[in-house]
């Protein structure tokens, strides 16, 4: 049998950076195929070549055994390849439905767009995914997870022969992932080929039949899932053994650092109260849309709130003023790294030192390479893979961009660290490094509030798990009672879990 889609000996360079060297891939109809590798291994670049975004420098793309050159994403789409990119690419001012049917809106008489049909088909797609998003609302302001769900709906709407998904689940919680997988399995069973990229191995093993491993832009191996173990895949990927994944050290909780009382923002969250002590890692769990990120943003001051109060080390924090929050020792690693976390056009160096621009200056001047040294130190600590620290962050792979956001905030030496999806898109090796860093910060007395959709991360790292459901705090579960069942029970709004 011929593969529906294949890559042979593909090279791709960006300037001096060789993103792909002799990359290979064979995708068969009716299989779900995982593509794994460290951050910067070249996965997204490979996807973009399949999608017609980039052309290969050398080598070929084969469709049904025939070489093809996709001149643009439209060519690839016409050939039946639907792609969900790692970073959502929605038009913020168009409605959700318009985004999904961009360029192929259903028409009625006189070539007018049939808005009703478009809305209905959007609702059908959302029903399949179990998503509740209003098709008529603009894409602007959707959370990163919702944007991801819209992208998934868009890809599904193509009825494609090949569905490529570049880390579609990075911002999703278990429930949404299960629904996505159910849809993906049914597509696969109907003969579609699925290429799935993820840094979460439980997902890879539950969805896929075959795995291809890449390292430094090269094809390393392809094998049946039955012949593989997680440890084996990781070793092939990284080229060495990875230590235990979640090394949270036990610490004695200190004074209350962050105290939130009755925080309310109408339409987002309601009467949220909790505390985080120094040395504690508190996880904020819940489904996508439960209001977790919104709470963190309101605390930090980028969003306003209607009622309630935030105290840091006992002192009330001025609402709506991020500079005041930073002065009080707060840091927020936001959910959307491209819009909120980074200035994509600026360099790694500038981004990594932006919140400390005053601290690094002497007499108000930034001479003498303080920024350069600090950025270099953190880039090394977090293993940012980049040619130069003066390169714009837009040239980094998704996971490496996330590392720059982490560097930017960890380097401020915060006293209260709020971190929204700390390891979104980060590979295994660095993930355990990030967890080690968080744990170390906690042991130094930092209060950590971690919003995470990844249950193993929540259970492994958190001293306490706060669960939100539809804008309300419904459970506060101590570490020894937190397990998959109790957290999911509360997150889906079932009574009786509240402690």
């Amino acid at each position, binding site marked *: 049998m011929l593969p529906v889609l294949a890559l042979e000996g593909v090279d791709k360079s960006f300037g001096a950076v060789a993103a792909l060297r002799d990359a290979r891939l064979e995708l068969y109809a009716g299989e779900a195929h995982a593509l794994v590798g460290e951050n910067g291994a070249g996965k997204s670049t490979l996807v973009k070549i399949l999608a017609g975004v980039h052309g290969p420098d050398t080598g070929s793309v084969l469709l049904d055994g025939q070489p093809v050159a996709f001149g643009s994403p439209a060519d690839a789409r016409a050939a039946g390849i639907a792609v969900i990119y790692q970073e959502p690419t929605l038009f913020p001012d168009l409605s959700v439905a318009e985004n999904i049917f961009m360029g192929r809106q259903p028409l009625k008489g006189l070539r007018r767009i049939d808005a009703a049909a478009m809305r209905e088909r959007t609702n059908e797609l959302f029903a399949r995914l179990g998503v509740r998003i209003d098709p008529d609302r603009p894409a602007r302001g959707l959370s990163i997870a919702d944007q991801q769900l819209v992208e998934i709906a868009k890809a599904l709407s193509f009825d494609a022969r090949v569905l490529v998904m570049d880390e579609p689940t990075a911002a999703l919680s278990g429930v949404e992932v299960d629904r996505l997988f159910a849809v993906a399995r049914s597509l696969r069973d109907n003969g579609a080929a699925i290429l799935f990229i993820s840094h979460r191995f439980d997902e890879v093993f539950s969805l896929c039949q075959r795995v291809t491993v890449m390292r430094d832009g090269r094809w390393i191996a392809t094998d049946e899932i039955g012949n593989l173990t997680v440890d084996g895949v990781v070793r092939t990927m990284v080229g060495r053994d990875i230590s235990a994944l979640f090394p949270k050290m036990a610490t004695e909780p200190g004074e209350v650092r962050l105290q939130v009382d009755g925080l309310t923002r109408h339409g987002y969250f309601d009467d949220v109260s909790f505390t985080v002590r120094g040395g504690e890692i508190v996880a904020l769990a819940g489904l996508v849309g439960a209001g977790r990120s919104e709470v963190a943003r309101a605390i930090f001051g980028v969003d306003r709130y209607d009622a309630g109060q935030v105290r840091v080390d006992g002192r009330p924090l001025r609402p709506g003023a991020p500079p005041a929050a930073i002065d009080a020792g707060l840091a927020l690693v936001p959910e959307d790294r491209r819009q909120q976390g980074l200035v994509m056009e600026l360099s790694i160096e500038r981004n990594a030192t932006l919140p400390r621009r005053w601290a690094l200056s002497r007499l108000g001047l*930034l001479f003498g390479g303080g920024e350069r040294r600090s950025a270099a130190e953190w880039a090394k600590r977090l293993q940012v893979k980049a040619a130069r620290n003066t390169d714009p962050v837009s040239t980094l792979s998704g996971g490496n961009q996330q590392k720059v956001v982490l560097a930017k905030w960890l380097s401020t030496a915060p006293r209260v660290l709020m971190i929204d999806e700390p390891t979104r898109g980060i590979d295994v090796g660095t993930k355990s490094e990030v967890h080690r860093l968080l744990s170390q910060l906690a042991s130094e007395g930092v209060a950590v509030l971690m919003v995470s959709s990844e249950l193993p991360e929540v259970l492994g790292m958190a001293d306490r798990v706060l669960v939100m459901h539809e804008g309300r705090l419904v459970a506060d579960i101590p570490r020894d009672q937190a397990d998959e069942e109790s957290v999911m029970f509360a997150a889906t709004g079932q009574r009786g879990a509240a402690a």
Partner: protein
Amino acid sequence: MATDTLVTPARTAKAGPPAWRRLFGSWDAVLILALLVVVLVASATIEGVGSPRFYRFVALEAIPIALIALPMTLVIITGEIDLSVASTVGLTCSVLGQLWYLGVTSLPLLILLSLLLGAVLGAVNGVFITVFGLPSLAVTIGTLALYRGLAYVVLGDRAIADYPPTWTQNAVAPIPGTVIPWFVLVLAALAVVFGVLLYATPIGRSLYAIGNNAEASNFAGISVLRTKFWLFVATGAMAALAGVFWTFRFASARADNATGLELAVVAAVLLGGVSIFGGRGGLVGVIAAVALLGILRNALQLADVPANALTIVTGTLLILSVVGPNLVRMARERLRRRRPATTLERKPS
């Protein structure tokens, strides 16, 4: 099967481009080169160009433009624009003249009041833009008309011209032993201040961040609105300084002073490589562009090119300035990106 030993030399060259190519790949270098070419060609072909008097005249003409271009560069880097600057000059001139007419005879006091007025006019722009959240383009087109109108309210069509000769002579006096107006030194000092502010202070870092992504800047603890507000205040004050210079240089305060100057300023900033969309560009290019435009205009005037043609030249340069830096950037991208080495058959559709 392809093997990874089959690499072409172009791909194995890991070092960055050579220095000469980096230089010629930058818009600043293109401008400086153009400046040299214009100076050389014009001096050789047009009589009077290249003489000390010529440069003295160019400098006097360029000073007000450059004074305003300094803060305007910062404003445009943050993605905003201020079109009211020429009217601010006009209103400052008028008020300055009227104050003198009404008997204020202390020069320091007159200068101080003028600068204060400019700052207030800038603050009015700033309030509309940052507090009410209106687009700066609309607001400053409005105040362009408003401030000019106020200038006419203050002076009508009178001209106040009877300043002490020492004031007017001193305004254009040369640095002893040269022909260069001493005010160029004031300009140079201010250029250094703005240059340091933009390139070597935390504020400069925020300006580029704001121009590229205001939301991420807000998340990084930058007070986006406050920063923009103070930029408009600074622009107003610098325009007022230009107004003071203008009044004494021409020994005349009139309501229509500096009409249309905003176009010369914006043209210089854009030609200098600052992106109209914000986030990109710097002062080196802008200063080169002010000089280039000034020399070009005066040389063409000496060559008896009619005024209409001069306008066409300025307009063409303005368009070039928006297209040019993009072309240079695209050319660099092209150099970096290699074309596919193998041409693949297109699938018949």
